[in-house]
């Protein structure tokens, strides 16, 4: 049997006690720090949870329910999903959304880039044109849609008057929003016109970030203006183009307001898009379960396309 030296034993206990106190106070400090940090994010997080996360989760659940908003919900399983394939309006809306996206994303991107390059030069009235082109993005959609409807009026709109003046026969003049063949064109043109100013500003920022020495080096290497554009501008703008493409794609899949203001999905279903169809099903037909299923499909569509875009960007 070994006897611990009393003084040594006391010392050891003292050291242990001190160490324990130190550990406890360290832990307490860590908890306090965490609480302080959570208290800072709590207002924002609570707002997000109540107004965003909650409704999203609710909409997900609703996609598998029958509900008209007043009577009790009933479980629908995959009924809403199978219904999609029988719903001609949904299929039309799906196709129209794809068409709108496939046409308007590259068209807006090209217009925005072209304008940015033009307005990045030292030209007369540059600031005025930059402001004028940005204006549609910030102007009230209702107001500009009314003006747009007037300009594109098939009978007495400015555009058809100009087309008539340059020799297009009255029977060949486009019917624009009133014509099922031209309605989607009208909506797309409106979308391009409305958002190209915003993306032009983003491209302007991108252009101004390009090192001017690269153009000088390319000039000395023998590149002409087009070769400088292809070999310097385009690759240097790749991150901006990626951002613009992703944002435009998401925006195009979500298109609603301009359709509502100009064509209300018509004539027929020629401009019916997914979000407009969701709106019809939810707030006209009060079929909240089915409209949530369409919203879920739209979400998956946007997610898939965005993931593909991110993957491709990473590969590049």
């Amino acid at each position, binding site marked *: 049997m070994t006897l611990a030296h009393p003084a040594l034993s006391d010392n050891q206990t003292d050291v242990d006690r001190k160490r324990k106190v130190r550990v406890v106070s360290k832990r307490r400090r860590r908890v306090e720090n965490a609480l302080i940090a959570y208290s800072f994010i709590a207002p924002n997080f609570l707002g997000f949870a109540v107004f965003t996360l909650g409704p999203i989760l609710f909409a997900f659940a609703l996609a598998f329910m029958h509900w008209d908003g007043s009577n009790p919900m009933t479980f629908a399983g995959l009924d809403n999903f199978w219904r999609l394939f029988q719903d001609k309006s949904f299929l039309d809306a799906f196709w129209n959304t794809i068409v709108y996206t496939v046409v308007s994303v590259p068209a807006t991107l090209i217009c925005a880039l072209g304008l940015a390059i033009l307005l990045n030069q030292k030209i007369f009235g540059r600031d005025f044109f930059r402001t004028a082109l940005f204006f549609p993005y910030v102007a009230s959609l209702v107001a500009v849609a009314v003006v747009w409807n007037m300009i594109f009026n098939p009978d007495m709109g400015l555009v058809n008057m100009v087309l008539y003046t340059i020799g297009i026969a009255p029977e060949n003049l486009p019917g624009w929003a009133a014509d099922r063949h031209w309605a989607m064109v009208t909506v797309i043109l409106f979308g391009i016109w409305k958002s190209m100013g915003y993306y032009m500003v983003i491209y302007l920022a991108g252009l101004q970030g390009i*090192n001017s*020495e*690269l153009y*000088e*080096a*390319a*000039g*000395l*290497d*023998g*590149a002409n203006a087009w*070769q400088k554009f292809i*070999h*310097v501008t385009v*690759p*240097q703008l*790749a991150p901006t183009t990626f951002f613009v493409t992703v944002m435009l794609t998401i925006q195009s899949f979500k298109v609603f307001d301009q359709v509502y203001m100009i064509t209300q999905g018509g004539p027929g279903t020629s401009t019916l898009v997914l979000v407009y169809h969701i709106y019809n099903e939810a707030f006209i037909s009060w079929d909240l379960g089915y409209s949530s299923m369409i919203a879920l499909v739209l979400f998956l569509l946007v997610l898939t396309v965005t993931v593909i875009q991110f993957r491709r960007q990473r590969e590049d």
Partner: protein
Amino acid sequence: MASISLKKLNKTFGALRVVHDIDLEIADKEFIVLVGPSGCGKSTTLRMIAGLEEISGGELIIGTDLMNDVPSKDRDIAMVFQNYALYPHMTVYRNMAFGLELRKAPRDIIDRQVQEAAKILDITHLLNRKPKALSGGQRQRVALGRAMVRNPAVFLLDEPLSNLDAKLRGTMRAEITKLHKRLDATFIYVTHDQVEAMTMADRIVVMKDGHIQQVDTPQNLYDRPVNMFVAGFIGAPQMNLLPAKLTQEDGRFFALVEDHKLPLPQNFDRSPLAAYEGKDVILGIRPENFHELAPADIDPANTAPFHAVVELAEPMGSEVHLNLIAGGRNLIARVSPRFRSKIGDRVSLVADLTNAQLFDPQTERSILY
């Protein structure tokens, strides 16, 4: 054949004139360095030669052709930029090949040229990398390689080493000098670093405020500066410029600096000295012309004792830079590390006037040259 002639070359930005009537003849295969402080117009001059800045006035002749309005790509020049300006999205190989590709050179020739340049610059193992995966020194080599592959008659280099650390700068300096010998082309090199200018140039062009101050070989610039600016700019630590009065005693000229009477060498041209007798001048003495003891190879008649108080001693290893105060004036002496002194010590040195300079205090021009 790529001699270059600048005749009354001018550059103005609006009302601001940044390059004034520059006249310069650069011989074929010469290594010319434009040196001067920031804003002296050296880079603008280079950029006018490159065709990156419009020439506001005067003539630029490369070989026998007037080049004022010829696009950069047709001037048979290549340029190395301060920040390298490598295309970030291209590999090293494509960066180097790009100029030849645009000129539609056959693929085998492009490949041969790129491989050859890469071998000379020791960057063959980097050919598949992108610029962001390279160090500063490697990027600099790629920038040089890009210039080399086209076999231009003139290389323009705009402060190419200023982004490198001191050690690498020293190595690259030697490499560029060797490259010049090997390529047999005309090099025009811009720097604000007088060490680069002194070590690399066949001739140096010293510029200030858009004017050429002096064009000469490095040694001549050092030994015979035409004005106080060149005297102060070339040499590190810079030349001591001390207010003095010129006197004559028994047929010999002296510079009186405070209470020091410093004898000027007998071989100095007497007529300009006589014109300044009794007048104020600026005496220039290089820091290495102060010695702790008079060296044996110096004529004692050209030396005089010089007393000063040590303000700071900067040991450099091979030498010590003594920051001194004499009669309220600051000056620097380069002495041997064996010379022991502390801050506040009063030291006695020997001033050697053999290579002394004299300047007019008003015009700042040399009295001797």
